């Protein structure tokens, strides 16, 4: 009996050890966590670009708080949830991760997370337009290519807003999902859409008239 337990706990400890060892490969020893350099290294080892959306997904899975950093806790919890403890397993898990994120129940969570991840300063509530455009492209570009291209074009030319807040962000996704494109027929400005989208629709309609 005792032997049985100790074998499994040994196995557990062994599994954790591997995860920790992997952690230490990339961690910055003085900080005690993986920093941007470490992440870059991790990416190249995984054969994935630093700006690839899958890294964002990984961060989401890890529930990473701070952009560009993974703490040990986050690493441990995340990799355990993924059920991986080695680099090769992690690589394989990334493609599964993509499918997991795309599940409707997860997607909105991921999308919201992506915005929060960009709030690097303390008490920051909004993200600048440039970064938003990149983020939109990264996160929604594949699924909603035409809408995103057009929206990004507008965001760059308009002057009313220099930053985007979380409410506006979440409504971008809603917009892509609910509004028919490119006719924008079912868009109703008297509803609670953020003003920036009202302005965008006006701009689109003027362009095409």
């Amino acid at each position, binding site marked *: 009996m005792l032997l049985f337990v100790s074998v499994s706990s040994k196995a557990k400890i062994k599994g954790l050890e591997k995860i920790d060892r992997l952690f230490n490969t990339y961690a910055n020893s003085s900080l005690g966590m993986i920093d941007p350099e470490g992440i870059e290294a991790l990416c190249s080892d995984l054969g994935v670009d630093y700006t690839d959306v899958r890294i964002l997904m990984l961060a989401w899975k890890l529930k990473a708080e701070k952009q560009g950093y993974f703490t040990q806790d986050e690493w441990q919890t995340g990799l355990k949830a993924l059920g991986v403890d080695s680099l090769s397993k992690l690589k394989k898990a990334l493609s599964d991760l993509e499918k997991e994120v795309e599940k409707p129940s997860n997607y909105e969570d991921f999308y919201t997370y992506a915005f929060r991840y960009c709030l690097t300063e303390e008490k920051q509530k909004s993200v600048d337009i440039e970064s938003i455009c990149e983020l939109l492209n990264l996160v929604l570009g594949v699924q909603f290519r035409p809408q995103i291209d057009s929206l990004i074009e507008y965001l760059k030319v308009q002057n009313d807003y220099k930053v985007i807040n979380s409410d*506006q962000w979440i409504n971008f996704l809603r917009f892509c999902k609910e509004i028919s494109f490119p006719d924008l027929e079912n868009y109703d400005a008297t509803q*609670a859409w*953020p*003003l920036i989208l*009202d302005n965008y629709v006006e701009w689109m309609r003027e362009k095409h008239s």
Partner: protein
Amino acid sequence: MENKAIGLDKGWDYMQKGITKLKRILEGLPEPPFTSEEYMMLYTTIYNMCTQKPPHDHSQQLYDKYREAFEEYISSTVLPSLREKHDEFMLRELAKRWANHKVMVRWLSRFFHYLDRYFIARRSLPTLNEVGLTCFRDLVYQEVHAKVKDAMITLIDRALLKNVLDIFVEIGMGKMDRYEDDFEADMLQDTGAYYSRKASSWIEEDSCPDYMLKAMSHYLHSSSETKLSEKVQNELLVAYANRLLEKEHSGCRPLLRDDKVEDLSRMYRLYCKIPRGLDPVANIFKPHITAEGTALVQQAEDATSNQASSAPGVQEQVLIRRTIELHDKYMAYVTDCFQNHTLFHKALKEAFEVFCNKTVTGNSSAELLATFCDNILKKGGSEKLSDEVIEETLEKVVKLLAYISDKDLFAEFYRKKLARRLLFDRSANDDHKRSILTKLKQQCGGQFTSKMEGMVTDLTLARENQANYEDYLRSNSAAHPGIDLTVTVLTTGFWPSYKSFDLNLPAEMVKCVEFFKGFYETKTKHRKLTWIYSLGTCHINGKFEQKIIELIVSTYQAAVLLLFNASDRLSYSEIMAHLNLTHDDLLRLLHSLSCAKYKILSKEPNTKTISHGDYFEFNSKFTDKLRRIKVPLPPVDERKKVVEDVDKDRRYAIDAALVRIMKSRKVLGHQQLVSECVEQLSRMFKPDIKAIKKRMEDLITRDYLERDKENQNMFRYLA
């Protein structure tokens, strides 16, 4: 007194004589009227014959003979006369005969009255009255009623009709069945057809007023008026409503255009009885007013752009005057022709709201209205009017204000101009000031006027304060600064915000200011004084070669001039350095002193505009025929600032309204929130939907509100 019984025949003979006499009277034959004796005798005869002891109690026979009297008369005289006439004449005859019959019944039943009291009552028989009428009905009515109906339908004469109709009703003796059964059903149907034919011909031929006149004269008996009128109404008015009203040369619009008050009143009376009948009229009324109003606006625009010679703002003032006149005119229509009906009040209001909010030559109507008031109220304004006229005009202006959506803009412009008047225009009439504030308060609420009232109060206090200051000066004469200083202390919140630059005051003035500060601090410790030199006035004596002239200038101008006491010649930049002013201000100042009407300073080079490289000298050669001149400094255009201030206030107002609403509702849908917000603010201005959305976003960022997770159109208040 005779005690012997009267025989039936003898008694009846006597009665017969009376009846004959009555008939002769009815036929219009020469016959003296009944004397009261004759009447008494006839009555008594009946009485006796009825109260005799049987077998001489002749009540039954008398009752029968009473009826027979009618029957005989009708058959022998009445019916023949009716039979020989037709149509209208027959109707006239019928009416006459009926009237006669009623008289006959009245008289005979009086003679025979005793029967009513005992005989008839005891046996529950029809009364004498009933018997009389029944005779007519059974004999006359039965025979003629069909003919009568036909005749009536082709008739137009209302009075006659009414008389004949009354027969139908009265024959029914209180019940309408005679009328309804015999007459009404057919009448309604025939009338419908009849009027439909008539209407289709009238609509072609007649002008709208004529048509209406004909329609009015066609209402029939009041009891069936509902049913009949509906039919008539339907055929005459409803079916052709639009055609009638739209008639090009005589329809509603031309009537309005030509001010045909009578016809319009008639139109109202006709259509007001029809459910929703007034809607088309109101729908023509409203655009008519809107068109006239818009035309006025256009006129003003054109006139301003064409006549460069007329003073700026004249055309706008004319526009306001004309708008007031237009309002008076159409309000009179609403109260007189249209009997104060809410539908028309509404039409008037909406029409005015449309064109009163148009901008004219870039100025909003709110501003124009404020300028108009200013002109009336200020001394030396373009209108020199008596007090009553001023009062009246101000009342009308306040009424117009109700139609303008940007009331807060008006308030701000008005406040600015009021401030100017209060500070520079001391002799203007106080009563008017107070009365217009009262009116504005009634119209727009206390919040609107509280600041302005504060301003007026400030001035009253300021005068007191000045008196105290002068006492203080007298008691401290040693420390007198050497210049007479009058200070008006204003409460910051009430007055419009003024830019106050830290002007480098000339030394003489600095002393004054310090001295006053000392005085003020003896009165109140906790207030801070900020000096607004841009509003000050100075009287300076200029010692010119020819004579000394007193110059009335603004404090800024005085500061510039006093520099020349110390130096003969100064450059632009030197002046600027001395005084610490902005380029804009300095340009204006120097222009007013060297390039305008009075050249107090001479400028090198002697061009018409100021540039940064110019040099200035005291112009000792300056002179004027007057000993005291005012050197005006044209005021800065306040419009932009006013609009900015108002926009800022609006943002706060929208914020406050949104928070207030959400705080009490906790959760609310987007559309409802927006509409409640608009409702709350409507007293002051009409908020832009986009502005509201923007403020909502701001409130979301500041964590006052959040969007509901489930329902994107719902908002939640975050405590």
